[in-house]
């Protein structure tokens, strides 16, 4: 049972849409002022950054409180830790639920952190329970933790509507096969099948309901599931973190290996076609991102060495493709084709581009740091001091 009614959820989404339309000039102030009172709810919401800060400090408080109980009562055995974490999970969920009821918080940060921590504590408690007396065989403890994590996140999603909890539940479920001692192909295939199952269910629900609540939530889950299918099958996409995900290396030969190679082209392609046909933005963006990952991992898949000009080729392809697509759309009747247009409609698009520009200061700075020499004078062959854009260094 949701903490918020469907009407409240729809009003909140409508309000966001009206604000975006107003900023984009599609509604004027007078119209918005007449519309706004009709969309009001008694839910308390806050600015996105304050929400993030509230979530952060709530996590600090809860984490410290749990550690404090552990230290004060000298809890060290698996049983004691398991019981304490179970109690913490229940307490976090109960407090989140009570806070939403008392303060009518909606995406306020506090209840979100509590909900997420409740699921995390439940998952770790399951790990501890399974380890009591060190009797866990194989990876039973991990399987228990992931299974409980999946269920707990579903409960959090069902109660509060946090889509990221639903995605976390799906990820926990998708990781379970990797904790079994199965053959290399079996765990990958099972994981992909789990994500594919979620994808099919979410896609069916989304297509039935459209972008209206709760269809928008299913659309997000559908896109995440598509990414899950892809990342399960792309054996080189997560090379750096494979061991964290209990993933073993797969020999780069054989039918299975080359089947996954085919899959990393087919999955983004099929998702892209499906998204274009349905004008499904989340799936479209996910498919494009996955296609980029395919391009980046193509060489490792084929056992070829990366070349320094590979990023230039990729960059040229992206720029050329974007310009060509934009021109093709602009030349259509009314500057659109089948409803697709390259013109900006949402005011939020500009905000995101400005955010990208502002945050690029950080990576410009990292380029500079990596290329800056240790000494103050220019050595003969290891570089000048770099500007943010990478001027100089290390040739």
């Amino acid at each position, binding site marked *: 049972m949701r903490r918020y009614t469907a009407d409240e959820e*729809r009003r*909140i989404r*409508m309000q966001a849409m009206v604000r975006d339309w107003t900023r984009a000039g*599609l509604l004027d102030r007078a*119209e918005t002022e007449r519309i706004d009172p009709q969309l*009001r709810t008694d*839910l308390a*919401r806050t600015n*996105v950054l*304050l*929400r*993030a*800060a*509230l979530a952060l400090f709530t996590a*600090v*408080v809860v984490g*410290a*409180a749990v550690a404090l109980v552990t230290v004060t009562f000298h809890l060290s055995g698996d049983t004691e830790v398991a019981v304490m974490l179970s109690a913490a999970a229940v307490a976090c969920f109960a407090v989140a639920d009570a806070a939403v009821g008392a303060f009518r918080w*909606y995406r*306020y940060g506090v209840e979100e952190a509590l909900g997420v921590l409740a699921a995390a504590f439940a998952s770790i408690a399951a790990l501890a329970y399974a380890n009591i007396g060190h009797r866990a065989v194989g990876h039973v403890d991990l399987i228990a933790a992931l299974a409980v994590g999946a269920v707990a996140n579903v409960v959090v999603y069902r109660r509060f509507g946090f889509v990221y909890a639903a995605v976390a539940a799906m990820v926990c479920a998708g990781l379970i096969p990797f904790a079994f001692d199965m053959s290399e192909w079996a765990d990958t295939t099972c994981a992909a099948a789990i994500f594919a199952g979620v994808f099919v269910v979410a896609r069916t629900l989304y297509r039935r309901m459209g*972008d209206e609540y709760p269809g928008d939530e299913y659309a997000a889950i559908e896109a995440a599931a598509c990414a899950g299918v892809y990342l399960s099958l792309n054996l080189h996409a997560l090379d750096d973190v494979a061991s964290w995900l209990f993933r073993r290396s797969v020999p780069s030969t054989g039918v299975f290996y080359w089947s996954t190679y085919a899959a990393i082209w087919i999955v983004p392609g099929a998702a892209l076609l499906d998204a274009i046909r349905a*004008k499904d933005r989340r799936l*479209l*963006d996910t498919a494009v991102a996955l296609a980029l990952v395919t391009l980046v991992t193509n060489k490792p898949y084929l056992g070829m060495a990366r070349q320094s*000009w*590979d*990023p230039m080729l990729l*960059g040229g*392809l*992206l*720029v*050329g*493709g*974007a*310009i060509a*697509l934009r021109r093709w*759309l602009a030349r259509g009747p009314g500057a659109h084709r089948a*409803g*697709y*247009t390259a*013109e*900006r409609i*949402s005011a939020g*698009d500009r905000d995101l*581009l400005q955010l*990208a520009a*502002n945050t690029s*200061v950080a990576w*410009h*700075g990292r380029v500079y740091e990596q290329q800056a020499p240790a000494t103050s004078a*220019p050595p003969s062959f290891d*570089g000048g*001091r*770099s*500007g*943010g*854009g990478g*001027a*100089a260094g290390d*040739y």
Partner: protein
Amino acid sequence: MTTERWLDEWRTAGIISADRHATLSALVRKDRFSVFLELNALLYLGVVAFGAGLAWTVRDHFARFGDAAILAALVALVAAPLFYCFTRAEPYSPDRVESSDFAFDYVLYLGCLAFAVLLGYVEYRFQLLKARWDDDLLVSALVYFGLAYRFDNRFVLSLALSTLAGFFGVRLVSWDVLPSTMRAAAVAYGVVVAAVGVGMQRLAVKPHFLEAYLHVAGNAVLLAVTSGAMGRDSAWWWLALLLGAAAAAVVLGIRFRRFAFVVYGVVYGYVGVSAQVLRGFYGDTETLAYFVVSGLAVVGGLALLSRRFGRDG
């Protein structure tokens, strides 16, 4: 009630016109579906990938290609975008100017990244500035600032700001706090950036750039004073500076409804103050109790602040 039903009701009630209703209904039904953001994201990623590959290729293959070939290629990569931009740009205006075409901003950005590679290569190979080689950073930054203002380009502005940080000698060390030698430079950098941003805004020259300046300046100053306050043997005035800067960020953030600065002030302030307070604590119990109590205080304060000023909806 569905979105289309809302729109129908508003039209029936005379809140929106029939034209508005038609336009908005078309958007809701996805008769118009914009891929503006997606295309821009591809362009941005493409230019960044191209720039990174260019720097990598020049670094790895300069001996094979020779100076002449590399310089010719780099000069062409700088000149062509600049020629394109100067010949196709809208006339200069101190206000916001929308790009004359879709790829315009990214062409300029690519030219600037190529310029950075070119300047670095020339400096490395020919050491024109020799002992004053840091000056190339200032020159680069000034060029980027000029181009950012001429063409109203935020990507190039961010490039200018980070290059200027390099000139001041400001850099993070492996994501660690700023080393003590860099703190004063970071504060100076932040003050200069904030002053330039505010000054340009007062002069009404690209006033929409102000926020970019203030984000960079705020983070530089707060990071510097926080790392100063966290030092084991730091002077008391680092903490005083931190408290002052954090309070200013919170107060001004609330006043101008820029809540990012409120969050900067709270987070940096909390980290710096906690580092000082925890220096007097030795046991785990005290330390954890501190985090529970202080964290609750911050959550309570932020919740009150959100309720009063940051309410959204």
